[in-house]
């Protein structure tokens, strides 16, 4: 028996000693890895931001997509095997990841702070673009359609499935607004237990009519195939679909919007290059190039202050922001995790 163990032990020692030598010694210097949410925005950013940065600086860049979940980034940071360098993150996740050490603090000596809108410069994130979601539907399939959030709940007058993003963020706000809560009071109401219950009760009313989506491409697939009659979808993707021939009507008055950030993964061996890339990508010229091919709303001061820049892309979130609800980052940083759990339990019950 002892001999068996000794043999096995010897085999494992051999394996475990030999294993790291192979890949580690052959590792070439890799490209800078940028990760975003995909879709039309990333296609546009690939040419106007990523590849343009590569052409300007010689730093090779590769990009990939994820759906905004932090798990892989946490796993990389904890195992000290960081292969993503620059990532696009939503505001509450950025702050959460910053507190948890998943993102490195932005080097504000490399990235110029003064070019961002006030909310665009945070400890671990540099503002990228504003994004929004709004209600849209296919006019060919639905000649009669709800005109606002309250009518979206009228399943007798407007039959068909409704699609929202799976999760409490945006969904609870929509539920309250459909119940008559004015935009500016949404988070005050949502901060009380009674207000939360009211939002969940409101959702319960149309529960059988709801189909949830998890990735940004899904609401367009659902509406495009007729599976769902009315959906909240990312505005940029809906605008792009219309440019490609779809006949979707989007209600800008149902807009909910927020800002995405660029962040550098903590422990990235390419952190310095990442900072330089973020500095480059948030400059006015590349952003203007981006705005020419995608209805983007960069978190750059000039786009906020210069009306002609905004008017140049009428289908951007920035041009329609006054009609929408700004998603309260602080509320979701404080309550997001607990509400996600409560929401998941409610949805699965």
């Amino acid at each position: 028996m002892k001999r068996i163990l000794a043999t096995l032990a010897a085999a494992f020692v051999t394996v475990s000693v030999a294993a790291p030598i192979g890949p580690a010694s052959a590792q070439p210097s890799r490209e800078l890895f940028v990760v975003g949410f995909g879709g039309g925005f990333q296609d546009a950013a690939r040419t106007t931001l990523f590849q343009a940065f590569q052409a300007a600086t010689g730093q090779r860049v590769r990009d990939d997509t994820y759906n905004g979940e932090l798990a892989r980034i946490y796993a990389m940071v904890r195992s000290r095997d960081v292969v993503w360098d620059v990532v696009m993150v939503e505001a509450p996740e950025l702050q959460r990841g910053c507190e948890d050490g998943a993102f490195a603090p932005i080097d504000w000596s490399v990235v110029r702070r003064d070019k961002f809108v006030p909310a665009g410069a945070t400890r671990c994130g540099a503002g990228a673009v504003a994004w929004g979601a709004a209600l849209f539907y296919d006019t060919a399939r639905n000649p009669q359609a709800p005109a606002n959030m309250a009518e979206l709940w009228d399943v007798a007058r407007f039959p068909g499935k409704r699609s929202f993003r799976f999760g409490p963020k945006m969904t609870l706000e929509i539920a309250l607004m459909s119940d008559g809560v004015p935009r500016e009071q949404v988070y005050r109401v949502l901060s009380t237990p009674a207000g939360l219950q009211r939002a969940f009760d409101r959702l319960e009313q149309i529960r059988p009519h709801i189909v949830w989506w998890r990735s940004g491409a899904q609401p367009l697939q659902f509406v495009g195939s007729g599976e769902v009659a009315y959906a909240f979808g990312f505005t940029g993707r809906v605008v792009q679909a219309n440019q490609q021939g779809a006949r979707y009507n989007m209600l800008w008055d149902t807009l909910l919007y927020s800002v995405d950030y660029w962040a550098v993964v903590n422990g990235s061996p390419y952190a310095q290059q990442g900072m330089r890339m973020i500095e480059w990508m948030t400059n006015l010229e590349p952003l203007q190039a981006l705005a020419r091919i995608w209805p983007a709303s960069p978190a750059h001061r000039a786009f906020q202050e210069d009306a002609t820049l905004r008017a140049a892309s009428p289908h951007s979130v920035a041009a329609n922001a006054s009609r929408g609800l700004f998603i309260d980052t602080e509320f979701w940083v404080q309550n997001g995790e607990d509400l996600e759990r409560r929401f998941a339990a409610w949805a699965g019950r």
Partner: protein
Amino acid sequence: MMGPSGRRRTGIFLLLAPLGGLVLFAFLLPLGMLVWRAVDNTELATALPETTRLLRSWDGAGLPPEPVFAALAAELPKAADNQTLGLLSRRLNFEQLGMRALLLRASRVAQGFRAPYAEAFQALDPRWGEPELWQLLRRNALPVTPLYMLRAVDLTLSAGGGIVAMAGDEAIFRELFLRTIWIALVVTVLCLVIGYPVAWYLSMQSGRRARMLLLLLLLPFWTSVLVRTTAWFILLQREGVANSALRLLGLVEEPLTLIFTRTAVYLAMVHVMLPFMVLPLYGAMRRIDPVLLKAAASLGAPGWTQFRRIYLPLSLPGIAAGSLMVFTISIGFYITPALVGGNRDQMISTFIAFFVNQQVNWGMAAALGLLLLVLVGTMLYLLQRIVGARVLQAGRGAG
């Protein structure tokens, strides 16, 4: 000293070493990590090491002594700075709502605190003077916690440390485990009902024909589960093939809701799992000697009796093997319910993925995974005890 037989033994063990390695690295090690993750509780010790040390030696009566407050005041701003406070505050918030805000607020101002620290904390927020809060911190100064395992069965720790039921709007896991087992059972029974005649037909064919049919059966294995499930989505959607056909035939006026239903989950899962049932059945049925049936017939047994007394008992090992395989694989299904099921058709894996990906709460994911493993293990053990004995009896009876 080592004779020929010894050398041969060494050779055998060397040959078995890869298997041993596989079992160790692919099974035992992850299992150990799963168990460890489900009880691991090092957030407080990582973020506030000195406070943790002092809390461990505190007797737990009333409020802790001044040095604990002092250590906390010194360590909170440091933890915020080196980005370890986030994990701690989220961990404590998971146990007790409001802890996150309390800790972050204190960490922002603690630098300016002067002795006596206990009073400085209580002036900032009276909760720092509540014994329950300090019980919570003291509990979490320990390196292990039962919290995740309790939550996995809809229990939780009360403020005082006792075990209480989870609040109604977050209690879902008992229901979810039952639903998971139920779906896996239904899929297993459906596979058996559909697969048994198919396997019987296959076993009756000979040579080339049998090989061709087997190949057809295995064909679905060449495409991924994801692709096959997506195909079901396309078939079952509102304007999909199934609804178009039904309307063309005039069977329905309005399109039926087929997708995002439990029926769709069963359909897609049975489609994926059927070969896992048919193959073991086929194997068992091939081994049944047809002469036995002829003998029974010659003794005057009608068809049904032949089946019940001879064929069924002899195919029992195939039924047991196929059912076990289908059940154990089905119970861990994730993609299929996620794509074609509604929210009330999601299985436990969906929530494990939710805790891993969205909440980044690996403790909770590990606890649910561990519970699922224990559950499946127990069920398999019981099934083997019951079915195993009967199969043995049947074999003896036939012999």
